[in-house]
């Protein structure tokens, strides 16, 4: 299972401990993560299920390419970091 980590800054607003989740794509992983905590999903994804404009996600040290469909591949031992983008100030 992939490891999913959240920016410390998000923890000020909502509980979001690091956790493990299954999935072959980022979309599958996040679906599994946010199914149990939809309010947390609203902090990361917009109403269309796309990555918020001023958020970014890295998988194994590489920034994802597909911010719309979240189709970037995830391996069972991948480490995913969900972070703020500097574009947001």
């Amino acid at each position, binding site marked *: 299972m992939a490891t999913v980590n959240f920016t410390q*800054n*998000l923890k000020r*607003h*909502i509980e979001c401990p690091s956790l493990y989740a299954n999935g072959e794509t980022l979309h599958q992983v996040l679906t599994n993560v946010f199914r149990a905590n939809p*309010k947390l999903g*609203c*902090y*990361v994804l*917009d*109403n*269309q*299920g*796309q990555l*918020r404009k*001023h*958020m970014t996600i890295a998988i194994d040290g590489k920034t994802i*390419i*597909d*911010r*719309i*469909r979240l*189709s*970037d591949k995830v391996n069972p031992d991948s480490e995913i970091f969900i972070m*703020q*983008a500097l574009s*947001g*100030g």
Partner: protein
Amino acid sequence: MNPIALIATKKGLFQLLDDLTVQPLGFMGIPVTMVLASKNRKQWYAALNHGHFGVKFHRSSDMGVTWEEMSAPQYPQNKSPQKEQPQTDSPQDEKGASLKLIWSLEFAEDNNDKKLWAGTVPGGLFYSDDSGKSWQLNESLWQYKLEQEWFGGGFDEAGIHSICVHPDDASHINIGVSCAGIWQTTDNGDTWQNKSKGMRAEYMPPEQQFDPTIQDPHLLVQCPTSPDSFWVQHHNGIFKSIDGADSWSEIDTANPSNFGFSVAVHPKDPNTAWFVPAIKDDCRIPVDGKFVLMKTTDGGQSFTTHKKGLPSTISYDLVYRHGLDVDDSGDRLLMGSTTGNLWLSVNQGDSWRCLSHHLPPIFAVRFVKQF
């Protein structure tokens, strides 16, 4: 100490207490775009716009001591088939709408603190009957937005900044939209009519200047004791209606400027209204650097300017559309600026006292009223 007003700023929510001190109330460092509270309702509400994490909606049952996150309004997911290739961006028509801002909040009924209207960017009106645990997009109005391609005024996309619920009939509502003019429902949102007849947009091509769907009202206010009387501070000037928004007349007597964002109407006298003028429209600073308030007491036939207690030297304060409010009595006005100045008047705007020079940029001020 009791709160007499709430102040929503770029860096959190503040309250004005009855000893005229200003105290932080919550959400420090977070933009608070709108707040809703009343004397006769237990629940208070605040709308936030995190820079990174999106729009959030909070409720307090203890006058702001603690806040609980509720659900924010949510636009429906676009069901159109997605392309197979990875996408880094998508055209607007394929992307579907997503909540950008809660710009206006009002109670939907008397004696009920759970039924709410929320006006948003990108142009949707939402209703909640459970304190914001869930929201329903008003589909009939949203269809007009999609068909008429409302455009943005102040933001990239259209937005609803004014919601006026008729004081005697909660199903009769007028809203102000930038940029789609004034819209009215008399059946609680089932059907809508554009009510911008007489408004004029000089900044548009000649054939479009009177088009009701491109008007940019900056703020719509309704006199609670004379609900057929409305004032609008419009991008193009000041407009007044005395027939329930069926028609509007342009007021051209304002001095030093008919441009601004905010307007407040006296709760017991529809002929008395206040405005904060600025240079239109790419400049947006006080005329000649002199920050003043404009007041009419004769329905716009004439205006007086008031500066006692306001900055005596050159000023760059701008008052956003929700940055001016009048209390239940009509005597006290509160005004907050982009420069973080907060002023109070206790004599209908004739003179002012600065309560703070050092607040963050102020988005909205609201007296805690009996409504």
